């Protein structure tokens, strides 16, 4: 029995390191974050 957790952006943490608004308008999920230092 195994569980492997993929490397995903922590959405709760993005409350603090997200929200710059510089990403392209949009599928929302397909948009990469423009702020690579934060994502």
């Amino acid at each position, binding site marked *: *029995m195994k569980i*492997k957790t993929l490397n995903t952006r922590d959405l709760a943490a993005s409350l603090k390191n997200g929200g710059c608004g510089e990403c392209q308008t949009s599928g929302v999920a397909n948009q990469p974050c423009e702020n690579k230092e934060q994502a």
Partner: protein
Amino acid sequence: MVHTFSLNGFDIALDVYSGSVHVCDPVSLEAIRMYETQPLETVMGRLLADHPDNPEVTAQAVTELLDTLDELQAQGKLYTRDIYQNSALHLKKDPNLVKALCLHVAHACNLTCSYCFAGQGHYQGEAALMPLSTAKQALDFLVKHSGSRRHLEVDFFGGEPLLNWQTVKDTVAHGRELEKQTGKVFRFTLTTNGVLLDDEVTAFCNQEMHNVVLSLDGRPEVHDHYRKDHQGRGSYHTVVPKFQRFVKLRGDKEYYIRGTFTRRNLDFLEDIRHMADLGFDKLSMEPVVTAPDSPEALREEDLPVIFQQYEELAREMLAREKQGKGFQFYHYMLDLAHGPCVYKRLSGCGSGTEYLAVTPAGALYPCHQFVGDGEAYRLGSLKEGITNRELQEAFQHNTVYEHTACGDCWAKLYCAGGCAANACHAQGSIHGVYDYGCKLFKKRMECAIMLAAAKEEISSVKAGGESYGDQNF
């Protein structure tokens, strides 16, 4: 909230509010489903009773598994709660801040595609071309209302924007001047049917356009059924050589071959294969959105076939990637590690606030899909600014939480409540949902997450790690 699903041999759990993706085996997935609401002893008993012949399912192994689930919960990666209610308006707190415009430079078209939402390009109105003065005024308006936003977007749209090509070029030149004066960065994009694509247009686009969408529906007989010129002639053999030359000269810059599938080609995977075989590697194939009683409209009974096509597409992409002939499918591009922040996922596309459509006459609408809907959805004009404050406020507050139907949906932080225009046309309210589109979207997201897991698995196996055993790739 946790969404669990099995696809292509992968057993996957998505923790909705943290965004965590867990790749499991069937027993672990069963444990995740039960453990959120049932006590440890019950889960332990059920797992042991359900798998008496599985030598791996022992009391010790189940105890260790449930310990792992406890750890994941403590790390905020499983069974997380919605803590975002007060953050939904962050990106829309200033409803007058604009960062993207869709310029309708041509309300006219040289094709007569019967499924076109824009009514063959003129949006249920008179044919018109946008004067250069209006286009320049639009860019000035954008800069003026962009606040601290540095990246600004301008999409040349129609109709067919190449019918007003000189205005497109002169507008880009104006944007480049504004960049020097203001420090802003314009991203210009263009959507074209390709009929007027020539070497001059290609060279200009490859220098100035951040992205270009090229409309192609797939196989010749599929494309030509809808995409005819005013003499009734199909356009496939006109546009395909032009697209191939365009893409060859495009280098590594962004483009998309974008098709529409209807009830006539529910086997749309064949059209995607055709696009890939033509040498295109950035593909998008979209379900038609049209009146439910039209012959091309997708029906409820078509869903199993469409779902099967999406799943087969994911398998095909993995197979082609292994052969070194991979291609991108837009809706399967999911950057789990560097995707959008939660603010973006709560607020959606920004239509009606940070994204506006501009008609040839300079009227402002919430987005290109509302332009044909008349005065009720007119927000104002470039000259007057936003005058319909009530409508602006409705779009400002149109976050995922305004869509009551989305409350318990696992995909809501991937779609942010879906397309306001589709919801409006389906249910009469921008706060509604387009239920058929939701079903397709969720299937695409499951396929995209499975693909992410498969790619991780391929990398892991190549590096000498363990495989989960049952996957098909």
